[in-house]
């Protein structure tokens, strides 16, 4: 059972890592608009644009 002394900090570190990832996503503006991306995903690109 003493493996808990390792697992518990690891679990907390994991959680901290995911919170960090979420904070990064929020501060990058990924959650500012929750409506448009669902439409954008169905518009596939029709070839490279003239400017590349």
């Amino acid at each position: 059972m003493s493996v808990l002394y390792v697992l518990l900090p690891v679990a907390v570190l994991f959680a901290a890592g995911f919170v960090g990832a979420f904070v990064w996503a929020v501060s990058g503006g990924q959650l500012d608009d929750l409506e448009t991306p669902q439409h954008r995903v169905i518009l596939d690109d029709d070839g490279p644009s003239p400017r590349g």
Partner: protein
Amino acid sequence: MVAVHPISDPRCAHCHNEVPSGSVFCCAGCATVYEVLKAKGLGRYYDLRGDIPISPAKTTQRDYLDFDDTAFRDKYTLPRAPGRQHVDLYLEGVHCAACLWLVEKVLKDEPGVIDARLDLGKSTVAIDWDPARTELSTLGRDLDRLGYPPYPAASTDRRAARKREDRKLLVRIAVAGACFGNAMLMALALYGGLFAGIEAEFSQLFRWGSLLVAIPTLLYSATPFYRGAIGSIRARVPHMDLPIAVGLTLGSLAGLVNTVRGDGEIYFDSLTALVFLLLSGRWLQAKEQRRATDAAELLYSLAPATARLADGREVPAENVQPGTLLEVRPSEVIPADGVITQGASSLDLSILTGESRPVEVELGASVSAGTLNLTHAIIIRAEKSGSSSRMGRLLALVEEAAEHRAPIVLEADKLAARFVVRVLVLAAITLVVWLFVDPAHAVDHTIALLVVSCPCALALATPLAVSAAIGQAARAGIFIKGGDTLERLARPAEVWFDKTGTLTEGAQEVVDERGEALAGAALARATQHPVSRAIARKYPRATAPSDAKQTLGGGVEGTIEGTRYALGSPHFILDTKGARIEGALDDARQEWARRGLTPVLVADLDARVVIGAFAVADTTRPDAAASIARLRALGYSPGILSGDDPLVVAEIGREVGITRARGGVSPEAKLATIAASRGPVIMIGDGANDAAALSRADVGIAVFGGTEASLGAAHVFLRRPGLAPVVDAFEGSRRALRVIRRNMRLSLVYNLVGVTLAALGLIGPLGAAILMPLSSLTVVISSYRSRMFRRSP
């Protein structure tokens, strides 16, 4: 080049609305957009959009040169990097994924545009561009020609502040959620240990672990509650945040003591869950409310922003200096108070006065900013602009009126406040009683009571129902700017309607006619005067005589099949042209005048006799009378407050069934009437002349098609035409209030049971942990399963 479109299709090639047979497009706007799309090879738009009709394309054909102005750049754009400028533009007419594709594609194909992203929910596009390679006005013209006229969105620092706030709340929720999950896992291990046995060493490990993961929630995520509680103590008003903060503080202290002691409950799982759920509820509510306020604010920014100098250049309207000569073309809004120095025209003053009939103005007449030029181009010499114009002073009144509105405490908050006080008293009693009965467990039971009674469901009950209601209302075309407005709407009140544009359509129409009308209809085709247009609409097949000659402020004359006819006001026909009027026609004319209708006469100039007559008036909306009746049945008492002629107002009142009809009321007098009301009062209007009254009333409702000023001032605004949505708003808010009350009752029952059990020392931590989420779940289901706002057919 325009691709071939099957002529047999009775629908517009662009917007898919019905068109007269033989035409391809319903309007010039749609034709322009169609041609631009085909010319640029963007026909894929039509594949993406499908067959559903949309509103006809609108293009302003403005040159958008003001977008390149340094004043504009300072106020609305933001430098991101050298050669990279950022701007948010609000676009009219954005509705679907095809628009998303088109807007982004067109902008990105423009050299110099670095990035363009459209937000469908807010109808705004964020553009990063290089000012050295392309001008913003070019992009503005591109968007306009596609039928998406752009406007600058709110100033950049306001938007940035709001965005920061939104993101901060999301991070608080994320932290609370992660802590809640982990604390719950460790709590499960501890509960498991209670039954299956656990070594003291490991239970201590879990206690310290729980404490560790709870710290970020309690010290960071929960700070809004502590701030709310401190504010509540300072203001001496019990607030929902107070017991939450007390519970959190006591719970964490007891948890901390028990952790150090190595015995007893630690509460961290319940505390983190509480913070997470409460914050989530607040976020949901804020999101729905924000949708309504955003929409209003964006529309507010559509105010006429530019003025055209006499040499054709466009400048920001607020920077117009006194003495500047300005050109105002037909169907443009006059940008500043001034005097006409060239030309004559008729103006629509309804925005300022509520007067529905067009007013003739000539050389030397004073004109006011905000009024609409109808028939001819005029040159005016500006005297006052921006905030010093009459319109500017009216808008200042609006803001003042908003500050005067009596504050109201939401019924739910009042209930919560009573609840708060009782819980605190109960907790104190429990503590004292148990100190005598069983001192060892006194603190435990007290905290169990605070946690279980923690008004979790109670706190969620109102915000969830309000958020669901505001969301449903928005989908039904009713935008409500705040939760407290729901309650104000639901209470029976005095309801004052504006007339022009609210009870009536706001446009002239032929309501009666006598004698020979066809010659008049042909002459009406020859002018742009609103009264003539009303007659022309009634007879779409008439053609204008080629020699038609118009006399300003009077009428029009011309030859039809060899006979000279004239159409015009009684003054023009009888006095200027000297025609006689006899018998039934004369009786009709006098009766119309008594009823406040505008008489228009048709005369045969060769015989010098009046041969026909029209009565023109602003007609009531088709659903007005039925809506007023529904309103009365709900217990509201309607009345009319209008700036128009009392005769006209009384007539409209008779038609819709309102006896309390007051005419000739100035904007200031409207405000005074609202302010003087003793009971709750609701104002419904559409113009700038209503704005101050809308803002001062307990609830101001701006109807569809209202001016920017009224939208900004109102607490509710409608995105569907007619008066039926007004009644829908009243009925919906009553249903919403019933759902809120039901939620409160449900959560109170849960809490009463929980508190009783806890005070008697009967409930363990496990029971509390089950009861709490169960009560929240009930409230969530009750809120989102209820249909509150409906569209009446």
